[in-house]
């Protein structure tokens, strides 16, 4: 688990919006942000702001809001099943009222009938307290979810609220069309909601003043791995990987896994590329904002094999190709990482990945395949070295 530090060296992180002034209590929140104003044109503002979802998929938040019909359900998603990620928990525990503001403003804007907030067991007491601190939040239904990797997927959150386990369900029709108990359902990550709270106060133009033109605003990033100061920080969207990592003092970087366990590895040559949503041209897709750094002492193949094995174990056990394919893929990658010299391993692994791609109710198989493919590409020299009986990592 990552330890959460206060964002290091704040002067290098201009215009912090979520983790700037403010605090966990409603009094501190009101002192820093003022009361939540009525904003009749909020959906339009969010569309114009260019805000993208911060839960991983990076879908335009405004478009999702605009696709809701009245009488539906809004769910704030603070599940954060990814073990490396700590930003949602930090936000929920230090700025809960920003999340509640965003949730309430969104629910009003889409004329929702029900408002839910789903968080992990660690954050639940803080949120229970925050909800009780204000009169306008009493109708929010707070639900604790289990800590499991696939539990944060939108359909898994909906399934949890129907009284089931937090496991993904098949949803060929969008949740905004038919979700919780067949009602239109909007699931938004809690950081996305906090940004909506900022937009509700300052408007779209102010939001766009910082960040990448195709993915404006700031975003929360969790930095982990071979760095001196792991933790969560807020940075302008579109900042380069190098600039973002500087505050964490990484030392020599031999690779970084960007976007978390369903993300992709990049090598040191990518350090000056911007981190932003996948739709932003030239950007490294930042997903839910997780950056796992490895230095010269860590073998990228070994690290990937450990993650792939973990992910295979995190299957919800529902979909055949995921249940059967991920353990095989993890095992093949582990054999490559362990120096098994069978020259057919890479081809076998690629064949297995093609058999899991897109063949599940959620993106767990595709995300795992993406991680493994990126490891084979970025650490291609290492694959050759391992086959020859060497490992480039020196401890």
């Amino acid at each position, binding site marked *: 688990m990552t330890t959460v530090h206060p964002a290091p060296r704040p002067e290098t992180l201009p215009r912090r919006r979520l983790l700037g002034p403010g605090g966990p209590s409603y009094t501190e929140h009101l002192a820093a942000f003022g009361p939540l104003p009525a904003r009749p044109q909020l959906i339009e503002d969010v569309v114009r702001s260019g805000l993208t979802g911060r839960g991983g998929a990076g879908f335009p938040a405004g478009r999702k809001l605009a696709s809701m019909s009245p009488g539906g359900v809004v769910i704030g998603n603070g599940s954060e099943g990814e073990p490396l990620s700590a930003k949602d928990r930090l936000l929920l525990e230090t700025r809960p009222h920003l999340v509640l503001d965003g949730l309430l403003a969104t629910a009003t804007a889409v004329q929702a009938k029900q408002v839910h907030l789903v968080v992990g067991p660690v954050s639940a007491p803080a949120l229970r307290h925050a909800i009780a601190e204000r009169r306008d939040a009493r109708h929010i239904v707070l639900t604790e979810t289990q800590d499991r990797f696939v539990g944060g997927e939108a359909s898994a959150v909906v399934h949890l609220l129907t009284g089931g386990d937090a496991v993904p369900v*098949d949803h060929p029709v969008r949740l905004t069309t038919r979700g919780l108990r067949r009602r239109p359902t909007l699931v938004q990550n809690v950081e996305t909601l906090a940004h909506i709270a900022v937009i509700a106060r300052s408007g779209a133009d102010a939001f766009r003043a910082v960040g990448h033109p195709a993915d404006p605003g700031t975003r929360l990033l969790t930095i982990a791995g071979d760095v001196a100061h792991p933790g969560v920080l807020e940075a302008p969207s579109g900042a380069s990987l190098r600039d973002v990592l500087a505050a964490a003092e990484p030392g020599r970087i031999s690779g970084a896994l960007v976007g978390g366990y369903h993300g992709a590895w990049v090598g040191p040559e990518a350090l000056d590329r911007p981190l932003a949503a996948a739709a932003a041209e030239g950007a490294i897709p930042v997903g839910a904002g997780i950056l796992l750094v490895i230095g010269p002492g860590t073998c990228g193949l070994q690290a990937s094999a450990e993650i792939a094995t973990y992910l295979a174990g995190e299957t919800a056990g529902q979909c055949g190709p995921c249940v059967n394919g991920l353990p095989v893929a993890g095992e093949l990658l582990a054999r490559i990482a362990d120096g098994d010299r069978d020259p057919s391993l890479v081809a076998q692994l690629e064949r297995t990945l093609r058999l899991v791609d897109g063949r599940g109710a959620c993106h767990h198989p595709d995300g795992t395949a993406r991680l493994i493919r990126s490891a084979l590409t970025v650490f291609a020299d290492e694959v050759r070295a391992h086959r020859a009986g060497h490992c480039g990592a020196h401890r």
Partner: protein
Amino acid sequence: MTATTLHIDWTRCRGRGACIDLVPGLSRDPWGYPILGSSGSDLPVPPQLEVDAADAVALCPVAALSLRPSAGTGAGR
């Protein structure tokens, strides 16, 4: 233009294989589950295969298959 798509609910499929026998173009993966083509969970159904696809939907013992209008597919969040 294809009007319909054969959609599989992977959470239901147990790899019984009835659809593989009924719909030309479906094949079997090493674990017995149907391979629907490049999109993974949705197979575009040309008019000449609509009857076969409808049979597969009706005869799947675990009701894992459905026919959907092509425009309505795509698992958005």
